[in-house]
């Protein structure tokens, strides 16, 4: 082959080769680390397969393997799962005429929430690195996203009840009698949920420095606290609602006990994380432990609030649609108490009672936002104050060793030097070694 022809040939083959290499690298990047050898093997073996369709078929089989592995694993599978869940949530919340101002506002909020939830993982990955290598971290991310996405259609259903004004009759009177305003709460929900997603993504990222033990403690305490709060108040903190399994008043001792336990959950998680965290730096023995404790407490509050919000809003939204659930939840004798004159107005009118229940529950759903804001603040206040109290005590050695012969706490001094030398006292440094 002559010079110019050879150069043309090289130029012609360089492009496809580069492209093939780029495809190979992209495929490898998508493949889970444990399977990269196998993908490389298929790719390398393709060089032995006769060129043409047979080689293409060989590589196609390899791509099938990659696709299956990748789909079975994380990344694309989770992305598809998120896209499907987000589309479902958005579709559920898309009813109503766009000409109606409230409906268009809600659509904008749904779009904003979905867009933010889609972009946040990319942003946090860039800022804080990928997800930490722990099953609890991954499960927490997926669960948190599922909970946040579940609030979208629930909030929409409740918004429809709040914003739809009855045309006439008793329902219209009830509509004006019962407070149901939610100006700006949809935007607040988007902001709060964005913050929740961002903090959880940060806490479960590789650069957050939260240990798996603290992560587990926070998740466990959060789930327990969330379930307890939901059990106590499935419709939030509505004064007009009770629950079917605590047929008492708002100040039922069991309810108070449950709330006490819930508030103590962050402290428990912080203590567990403190206990399970090893001292990294002897000069600052409490620093790493305090950080883990605060992180675990914060995580507890986030998980519990998110769980309560998703379950509570879901229950309330379901109650609006399902009559049997409404009958079950509003069974108590104290239904509708606290609203002046309402009891007499709806007495003997099941439809009016049902509507007033729906309207009050929908209005009270905004309390979940208060829970979402208050829980982390309480957790931070509880653990932050105790961390301030701990401070950074100086490393102090008592003049005598502790009883029991356990030796001094903290790093031990080395053995005495050979030749009968002795170490200087603890206040002196190694350069003051005395050799006899």
């Amino acid at each position, binding site marked *: 082959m002559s010079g110019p022809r050879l150069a043309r040939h090289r130029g012609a083959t360089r492009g496809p080769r580069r492209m093939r290499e780029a495809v190979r690298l992209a495929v490898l990047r998508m493949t889970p680390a444990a399977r990269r050898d*196998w993908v490389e*093997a298929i790719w390398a*073996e393709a060089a*032995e*397969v006769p060129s043409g369709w047979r080689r293409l078929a*060989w590589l196609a089989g*390899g791509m099938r393997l990659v696709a299956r592995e990748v789909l079975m694993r994380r990344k694309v599978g989770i992305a598809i799962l998120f896209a499907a869940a987000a589309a479902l949530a958005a579709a559920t919340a898309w009813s109503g005429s766009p000409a109606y101002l409230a409906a268009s506002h809600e659509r904008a909020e749904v779009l904003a929430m979905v867009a933010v939830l889609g972009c946040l993982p990319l942003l946090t990955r860039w800022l804080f690195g990928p997800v930490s290598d722990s099953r609890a971290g991954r499960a927490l991310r997926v669960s948190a996203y599922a909970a946040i996405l579940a609030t979208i259609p629930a909030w929409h259903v409740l918004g429809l009840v709040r914003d739809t004004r009855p045309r006439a009759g008793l329902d219209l009177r009830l509509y004006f009698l019962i407070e149901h305003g939610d100006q700006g709460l949809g935007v607040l929900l988007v902001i709060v949920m964005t913050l929740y997603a961002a903090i959880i993504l940060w806490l479960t990222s590789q650069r957050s420095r939260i240990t798996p033990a603290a992560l587990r403690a926070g998740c466990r305490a959060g789930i327990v606290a969330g379930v307890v709060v939901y059990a106590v108040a499935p419709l939030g903190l509505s004064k007009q609602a009770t629950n079917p399994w605590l047929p008492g008043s708002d100040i039922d001792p069991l309810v108070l006990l449950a709330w006490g336990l819930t508030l103590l959950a962050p402290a428990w998680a912080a203590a567990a994380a403190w206990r399970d965290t090893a001292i990294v730096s002897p000069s600052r023995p409490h620093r790493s432990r305090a950080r883990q404790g605060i992180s675990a407490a914060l995580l507890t509050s986030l998980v519990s609030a998110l769980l309560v919000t998703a379950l509570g809003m879901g229950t309330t939204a379901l109650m609006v649609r399902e009559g049997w659930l409404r009958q079950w939840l509003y069974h108590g004798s104290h239904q509708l108490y606290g609203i002046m004159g309402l009891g007499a107005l709806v007495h003997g009118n099941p439809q009016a009672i049902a509507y007033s229940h729906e309207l009050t529950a929908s209005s009270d759903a905004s309390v979940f936002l208060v829970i979402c804001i208050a829980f982390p603040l309480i957790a931070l206040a509880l653990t932050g104050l105790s961390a301030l109290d701990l401070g950074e005590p100086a490393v102090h050695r008592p003049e005598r060793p502790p009883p029991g012969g356990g030796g001094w706490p903290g790093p031990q001094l080395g053995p005495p030097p050979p030749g009968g030398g002795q170490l200087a006292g603890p206040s002196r440094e190694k350069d003051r070694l005395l050799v006899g």
Partner: protein
Amino acid sequence: MVARSGFSAQTLSVLAALADQPSQWQHGYALAKQTDLKSGTLYPILIRLADRGLVEACWQDEPQPGRPRRHLYRLTTDGLAAAALAGAAEPASRPGPRPAPARRRVAPPAVP
């Protein structure tokens, strides 16, 4: 189809192909030709067998000039036993004592 041994017919054919020459490392393409399986079927089987410790895999340490290194496979002792139990190989073809399976190790220089 799943045989009584718990292996599918395709897996049995791969086990049989590997058990034919149990001491020799074999290539994916050669196995594909022997078993008449496509790469999309053959490699998932090899991965499953390797995950279960029945097949060991390694990279060729002296590739042919201008060719990428190839991935090589052979049965482990457990793999040979499983193949014999499944009827994919005769027990008589079992070689002597073999070293413990070591995935990701470098292949011996003599490659068929």
